[in-house]
């Protein structure tokens, strides 16, 4: 697919252009507050830029904006009359906490620079911030995929990401998912650097820093920490005679020392928030349902719903595409993943790289199952898989390409782009436009 560096640059520029046009289209159609828990995440972020005395007024502004943008209409409910004084009194919107501060701190820093004039413009600015983070996540994902699989697979996987409707919805949502996906892309990139022997010790340190940033963004980020440790162990185990350079060791030790000092400083300076954070994390590990109470049919039903919701479901699990659309998406996902399993077994492919990609996806899926069935009950949501979106897109690309006869390999990239673009535009015309332009 890609033989020259100039061609690779052109493909990436074109993918970026396509993604930004789609982001502009989605931003023009999907009204504010439709993403998961957006009002809460927004008020926590915007709240850091306004005086505490203004917080109640800000929340009132958010509630009025929700009325203006038809938030209740889309639930086919009238808005509460009178409007509640606080978002916490609204049913169905999850809480957020500043104890996991990374997204809120970065988002508020962005707002301090962009200086929005009111709630609606602040929302819009944070949406642009999320789009920027999504581009960064895709760039990290591409860098990691390129190291492990080469230019062609990296570009193909980036094409899947650039034309993925549900990833786009996450990219225009004002919440911490966007930053978590950046952390996921970064960990994938550093893992690729570790496994391909590029300044291994330093890359391990960066990978752990990326995973720690993920943990400070969302609890789900803890999965990336597990993956980072597994990659580091695999790297050591695979290179028994590995002798790191002193310079690398010194840098790693310095990074670790800075990390420990920072942790101690946070523990001392923000004792209350630190306590909340520890409770939040341990709460995610409390088993609320007996481990043996989950049945196999339940797990299959959950996986089937995950497949159905992975490519597109609008309005936070409410607006589904038509049946024919879902069938095409199911074929793409199941066919791609089946092909990726075959590629892992095949001797003709780089099995080690495939195994790394599968490690990311398998750990994430297992963590999802563990959380949903035993600790934090929830419906399947594609965004739970997006921290490992780069390896997923690689597996889909590799798996789907396996199904294409060799005689059609020349036409395959264009056919893939056409199929993905068809799914995307029909996602707009059958889900977003009928839902939001009533």
């Amino acid at each position, binding site marked *: *697919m*890609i*033989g*020259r560096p100039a*061609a*690779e640059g*052109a*493909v990436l*520029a*074109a*993918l970026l*252009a*396509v993604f*930004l*046009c*789609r982001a*502009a*289209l989605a*931003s*023009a*159609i999907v009204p504010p507050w439709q993403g998961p828990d957006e009002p809460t995440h927004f008020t926590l972020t915007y709240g850091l830029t306004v005086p505490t005395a203004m917080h109640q007024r800000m929340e009132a502004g958010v509630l009025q904006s929700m009325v203006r943008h038809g938030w209740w209409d889309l639930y*086919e409910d009238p808005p509460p009359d009178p409007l509640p004084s606080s978002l916490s009194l609204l049913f169905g919107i999850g809480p957020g906490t500043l104890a996991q501060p990374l997204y809120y701190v970065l988002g508020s820093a962005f707002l301090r620079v962009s200086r929005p004039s009111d709630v609606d413009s602040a929302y819009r600015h944070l949406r642009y911030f999320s789009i920027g983070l999504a581009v960064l996540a895709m760039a990290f994902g591409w860098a990691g995929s390129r190291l492990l699989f080469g230019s062609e697979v990296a*570009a193909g996987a980036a*094409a899947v990401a650039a034309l993925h409707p549900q990833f786009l919805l996450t990219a225009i949502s004002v919440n911490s998912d966007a930053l978590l996906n950046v952390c996921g892309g970064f960990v994938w990139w550093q893992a690729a650097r570790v496994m391909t022997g590029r300044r291994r010790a330093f890359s391990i340190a960066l990978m752990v820093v990326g995973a720690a940033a993920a943990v400070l963004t969302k609890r789900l980020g803890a999965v990336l920490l597990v993956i980072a440790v597994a990659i580091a162990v695999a790297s050591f185990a695979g290179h028994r005679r590995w002798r790191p350079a002193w310079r690398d060791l010194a840098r790693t030790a310095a990074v670790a020392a800075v990390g420990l000092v920072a942790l101690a400083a946070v523990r001392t300076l923000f004792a209350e928030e630190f306590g909340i954070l520890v409770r939040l994390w341990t709460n995610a590990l409390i088993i609320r349902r007996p481990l043996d109470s989950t049945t196999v049919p339940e797990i299959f039903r959950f996986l089937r719903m995950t497949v159905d919701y992975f490519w597109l479901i609008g309005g936070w699990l409410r607006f589904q595409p*038509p049946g024919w659309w879902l069938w095409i998406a199911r074929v793409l996902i199941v066919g791609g993943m089946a092909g990726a399993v075959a590629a892992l077994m095949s001797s003709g492919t780089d099995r080690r790289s495939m195994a790394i990609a599968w490690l990311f996806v398998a750990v994430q899926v297992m963590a999802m199952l563990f959380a949903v069935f035993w600790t934090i009950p929830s419906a399947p949501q594609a965004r739970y898989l997006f921290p490992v979106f780069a390896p997923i897109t690689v597996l889909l690309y590799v798996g789907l390409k396996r199904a294409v006869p060799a005689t059609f390999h020349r*036409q395959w*990239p*264009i056919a893939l*782009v*056409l199929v993905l*673009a*068809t799914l995307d*535009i*029909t996602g*707009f*015309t*059958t*889900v977003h*436009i*009928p839902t939001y*332009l*009533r």
Partner: protein
Amino acid sequence: MPYWVRAWLVAGVVFAAALTTPSVSLPADAAGFRRFQVELDQTTTVSQTFVMTADGLAAVTLSAAATHPDPTGSVQVDLFDVSDRKLVHKFDVSAREFVEQPVYRLTFPPIDDSAGQTYRIDVRGSNLPAGGIALWATKGSRYSGGTMLINDRERWADLTFAAYAPAGQTAWTRLTAAATDPRRRSGAQAALGALAAYLAALGFLLRVVASA
């Protein structure tokens, strides 16, 4: 013609088709090759059942023709919700008005939860002259969600009819309508601009992929 240009043309056709195809297929049966007329009078009730495929049922059209030079009297049309066994709307239309246009549209306040409900339209004449007006129908079972009935007896035919709901609008209609609404103009115009840019960027992508 370069390969990528052909692919881009295909993408353009897909975009156009996606934008101009309604997101939901609403119940309807157009006049077909085997069309025929069903005479209306005081003793005959001509009906058509259909299953609504979207919420917001707001209108039904019927196709009538004058079979008398001066149709007098009136036509009664009832819309029944068969699922909930209730009369939803009742219309009394003058016969002359009913046949003035090839298609008569019966409009009523939208029914919010109409999706999945079975409806029946009953049409009967009142004080019509003999051979006054007739409804168009087509033989066969082309519409699978219901059938035509005459005095409650099923017939192997369907009336020429169409049900309307906002979901039956095309994406293009919604975008262009929003572009003329002062409240939604800027968003709709931005969406139309982004759509055009998306198609252009897709052409660029196909070109560089083909030459890479």
